[in-house]
């Protein structure tokens, strides 16, 4: 049976008419400001590619870029190592423990970045529990933990961890544990069965999770700015600083475009091999 519909709008135009409001809206309020960033990067204050030469060649900018990538890589690796056992417990051991852990992860995921950053400022602050404990253990005066790369990494790992857990868990829950039994019956030790059967089956989750976490990490603004070292800023922090303190829109835009380019390249590689639609589940 053919669907009945109003005859005012010809059928083949209908999807375009339905899409027009959102399309026009995104064009005017998303694509134009984005294009503005590109334009600023080559035109402020004078037309040319000077900012790109500077951002790519200047030792300061190069260090910021390398620092950002290095931090993001480190954070991503830590996230994989921490998320894997947690996802395993939720997916394979399950029961009441699994349900509670899943709930904690979800709750953390839905808590604002800002709130979680602030919590780490309390925990790692000089009157917080960690300093008190180190002091009690005889470390006097206790080390400064806040506003260092260490505190930035801890907070970033904490904030991005739930995403990694979700990505790995989504793959783990679909694995048939009989494959492990089959491996065992063929003489594999539990570790060999895990390494040769289970781990490869979860690789897709690790790749998806790492892609999202890495991309989010290099673009993260709030947390590194608040809790990280002011002397070792990440790209996004430098962008913000260029605008707020120096009103240097050209340089800020150039950094922003470099950041966007890196993001797009990583996601394109992912898309080529896995398909972006899988990233959003």
């Amino acid at each position, binding site marked *: *049976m053919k669907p*009945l*519909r*109003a005859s005012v709008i010809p059928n083949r135009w209908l*999807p375009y008419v*339905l*899409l027009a*409001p*959102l*399309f026009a*809206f*995104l064009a005017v*309020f*998303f694509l*134009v*400001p*984005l294009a*503005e*960033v590109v334009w600023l990067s080559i035109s402020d204050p004078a037309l040319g590619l000077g900012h790109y030469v500077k951002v790519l060649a200047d030792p300061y900018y190069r260090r910021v870029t390398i620092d950002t990538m290095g931090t993001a890589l480190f954070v991503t690796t830590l996230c994989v190592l*921490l998320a894997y*056992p*947690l*996802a*395993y*417990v*939720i997916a394979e*051991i399950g029961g009441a423990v699994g349900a509670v*852990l899943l709930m*904690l*992860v*979800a*709750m*953390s995921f*839905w*808590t*604002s*970045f*800002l*709130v979680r950053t*602030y*919590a780490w*400022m*309390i*925990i790692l*602050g000089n*009157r*917080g529990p960690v300093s008190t404990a180190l002091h009690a253990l005889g470390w006097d005066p206790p080390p400064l933990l806040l506003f260092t790369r260490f505190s930035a990494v801890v907070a970033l790992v904490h904030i991005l*961890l739930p995403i990694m*857990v979700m990505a790995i868990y989504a793959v783990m829950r679909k694995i048939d544990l009989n494959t492990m039994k089959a491996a065992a019956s063929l003489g594999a030790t539990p570790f060999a069965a895990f390494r040769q059967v289970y781990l490869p089956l979860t690789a897709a989750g690790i790749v998806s999770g790492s892609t999202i976490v890495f991309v989010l990490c290099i673009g993260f*603004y*709030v947390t590194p700015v*608040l809790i990280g070292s002011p002397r070792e800023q990440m790209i996004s922090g430098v*962008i*913000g600083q260029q*605008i707020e303190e120096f009103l240097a*829109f050209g340089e*800020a835009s150039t950094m*922003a475009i470099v950041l*966007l380019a890196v993001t797009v390249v990583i*996601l394109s590689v992912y898309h080529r091999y896995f398909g972006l639609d899988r990233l959003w589940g």
Partner: protein
Amino acid sequence: MRTTFLIVGVLVAIFVALPIFIVLPMSFSTSLSLEFPPPGYGIRHYVQFFHDPTWVGPLVNSFVIAAGTTVLTMLLVTPAAFAMVRHDFRGRGFINLLLLTPLIVPHIVMAVGYFTYFARLHLLQTYVGVMLAHACLTSPVAFLTIAAGLKGFDRNYERAAQSLGAPPLVAFFVVTFPILRIAFLVSGLLAFVHSFDETTVALFISGRDVATLPKRMFDAIRLQADPVISVASSLLFGVVLIVFAAAMLRQYLGQRGAR
């Protein structure tokens, strides 16, 4: 192997849950510093928060902006979701990609763009400006949620209504919308919370006049260690509980759609 995973997994979960159990007690602390554990408990910081217009103002602003963003997002996204789920047309793949780009572009990049673009349009430090920006950023999630609900919808209900003489719009409001109300509710809640929580773009474009709660918190954290921030955090966290219910509903919806 299993035991190792269990122990490590539980330890990691404690790390994950830790901050929630820090911020809530902190907001009831009697201390003026960020001392933890607090020396005593009381509600003085809450009293202070709600008597301070520089905190209550942003709280109200956040609600206004999130509500406006939600309405705008839903109006834009709903017809688009219908088009994408129910129709096959030229350029569908391209448009699908375009609709999801706000998920890809880092917020700091958009913050730079909005800062200069909205300055020219005189939209900086206005409710409308922040709502427009937030509607762009929230649209992909709202769109995906409605599209997911729509995929599981049995069109025969609509056809029945239309064969009984209901025009498409009437069929939508009388049949489709009530059946899919959970998808719409979840989508709306996600848009609301996304806007309520959004920090980076709001930092650059909300300014002093329409500062949102996250913007006010960010500035306060940068300035000094004020325990009143814990109250703001707890309020922001309270919003999480609402989303949480929404997320549960979404999962429930997904399972129903799969059947």
